[in-house]
């Protein structure tokens, strides 16, 4: 289900900017369902990793304080046109997704 990630990688010199939007509820576990009064269980992305041609660029640990449908922008050097950038995430229920983009 690679539909959860929108990823774009742009090049300026040898610096690549990766922008990604991930579709995810990022539920903190502290909100209550207005109708039932029950707590909505926590459901958020814990790990995000980004790699460039298979080499790790950055890995992040996230808490529930990241906004719903997270946006992320990072930069790295040593990039060339048409190189591959991969982004993946894992959430606290063990769900995961990954997406790939060519630097353009």
């Amino acid at each position, binding site marked *: 289900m690679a539909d959860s990630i929108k990823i774009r990688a742009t090049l300026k010199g040898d610096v690549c900017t990766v922008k990604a939007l991930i579709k995810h509820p990022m539920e903190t576990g502290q909100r*209550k369902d207005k109708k039932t009064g029950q707590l909505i269980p926590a459901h958020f992305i814990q790990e995000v990793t980004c790699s460039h041609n298979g080499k790790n*660029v*950055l890995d992040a*640990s*996230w*808490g529930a*304080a990241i906004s719903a449908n*997270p946006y992320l922008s990072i930069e790295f*050097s040593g990039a060339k046109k048409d190189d591959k950038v991969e982004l993946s995430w894992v959430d606290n229920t*063990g769900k995961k997704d990954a997406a790939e983009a060519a630097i353009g």
Partner: protein
Amino acid sequence: MNSKRRTLLKGTLAGSAIAVAASAGLLNPRQVLAAWPKASFQTQDFAESLKGLFNTDKTTASNDIELKAPDIAENGAVVPVTINSSLKDVEAITILIEGNPTPLAAVFNLGPSAISSVSTRVKVGKTSNIAAVVKAGGALYISRKEVKVTVGGCGG
């Protein structure tokens, strides 16, 4: 008698195989949790959270960290934050929101090619300081910015 023993053996073997498979299946999410610094994310204490991540809570205020966030956030559920740093040898960038029930929002561990510039969006529960803590050359540097919130990001 002998045949019964066979069935018993088979039964126990099959049972143990299932147990192994189950534990292997359970291992995956557990491994994820082990890598994720759970204690630091769950603590309500700013300093403790840093200690859990970097073994120290000693930070030096630095002008080399640029923390961009709005002065007033109309919607606390979506507050854009950008951190740029001109410090050398940056290993990690963390975002903490001092007024949130659990301050730690994110930790970015930078690889050798990554440039110390990240932006994302965070939830801010009430008017408070957002802090960017950057680990560079083994030491921690901090920069803070107050964000006023008119609608909280943690209510429901």
